[in-house]
């Protein structure tokens, strides 16, 4: 177990921090994904053909292209695209986006596409009568959305969102290609340096299993708490 020692001789502390990094990226990506979902779910449900098209394109493209390609495209094209947008506003200097943000964004965009589908499904399963009830009560559209639909939608979405969380957590293994040192990258480095890939990749698998197991426990607890409202 020397190779798992903490300190300068073993890989214990490196793998520990890498695990924290995986958790941090997963959570950030999940939140970014929520933001995307909050934008694209209304578009997908919109009756306007153009808005609808945009919403559908997002989920179709992101869910139809390998995650690895999405990540590569964002990694190589991300800062270029941001600089292009900035140049429209008259800012012409180089813009650096750090590895953590690039990675979180890439995974977030993917996670967002799945969250959008979950939200859409949840909203569509909300009783139509409530839309009419809000109308009768004279609630404005945004009030109706945030105060009536959103809370129900979140409750209905929780079980499926736990699936999205699992997907997101596992997808973070792919951002190792951007150089961000999370579990996969650290195992890769350790496996290369110690020439013991069997041990380190198996250990990585155990870490991921532990993360999915623990997060599922937590989500189940949340679910029970949320159900109480009914």
């Amino acid at each position, binding site marked *: 177990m020397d190779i798992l020692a903490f300190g300068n001789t073993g890989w214990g502390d490196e793998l520990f921090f890498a695990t924290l990094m995986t958790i941090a990226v997963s959570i950030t990506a999940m939140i970014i994904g929520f933001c995307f979902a909050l934008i694209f779910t209304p578009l997908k449900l919109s009756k306007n053909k153009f808005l609808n098209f945009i919403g559908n394109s997002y989920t179709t493209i992101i*869910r139809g292209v*390998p995650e690895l*390609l999405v990540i590569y495209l964002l990694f*190589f094209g991300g800062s270029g695209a941001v600089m292009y947008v900035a140049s429209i506003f008259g800012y012409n200097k180089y813009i650096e986006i750090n590895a953590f943000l690039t990675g979180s964004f890439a995974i977030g965009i993917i996670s967002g596409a799945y969250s959008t589908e979950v939200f859409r499904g949840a909203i569509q399963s909300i009783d139509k009568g409530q839309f009419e009830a809000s109308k009768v009560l004279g609630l404005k559209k945004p009030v109706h959305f945030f105060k009536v639909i959103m809370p129900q939608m979140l409750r209905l979405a929780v079980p499926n969102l736990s699936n999205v969380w699992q997907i997101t957590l596992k997808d973070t293994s792919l951002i190792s290609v951007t150089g961000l040192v999370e579990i*996969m990258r650290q195992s890769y480095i350790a496996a290369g340096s110690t020439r013991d890939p069997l041990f380190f990749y198996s250990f990585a698998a155990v870490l991921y299993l532990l993360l999915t197991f623990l997060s599922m426990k937590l989500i189940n607890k949340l679910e029970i708490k949320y159900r109480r409202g009914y």
Partner: protein
Amino acid sequence: MDLDLMVSSFPKLLNATLVTLKLLSLSLIFGLILGLFFAILRLNKNIFVNRFSYVYSYIFRGTPLLVQIFIIYFGLGQIEFLRSSFLWIILKEPYWCAIIAFSLNTGAYTSEILRSAFETINKGFIEAGDSLGISKKIIFYKIQIPIAIRQSLPAYGNEIILMLKGTSLASTVTLMDLTGVAKYIISTTFKPIEVFIVAGGIYLFMTFIIHNFIRYLEKKYSY
């Protein structure tokens, strides 16, 4: 944007798509067999058999495919006695390592899809068969399995698409699939965006076909 490069890389990428499709179809076939096998084990009353199947599916669904493929390719390659056994004939080849990893992975998801389909089958069907004096075996093969397949079509369609995307990881173990060839072209042209856009387009087209094919099947077998 280098349009010339996009045009000139297209035929090469299309050629590599064949490798991707081969990986996909073989993995799906093996995965379906594994999935059916483990789904049946899951329904078994024996707790050990039952648990064994559960643990298999939990491990493969709870870890990233990339880790699985690395363990099978780089990890197992380190074990001395495996290298001297007959298994090495298969494990020596990156192609088969990828297929083993993909099959085990999709098998785990497929077993879950089939299990939940089996569990939701209306007990009434089985009782109806029973009262007609049809044997348990025939009920299982002629009633339960066909209904389960129909029930799991939408979820299985998703799984096919996830697996198609998953095959892009074959490039991490030296295979020249669509993603592998895209990376190869980039290594000589240094233009990742153009090449990945073309490759992405091809993947998207395949997803589109699979998606619509499943929709067609769903309609055809709807009741």
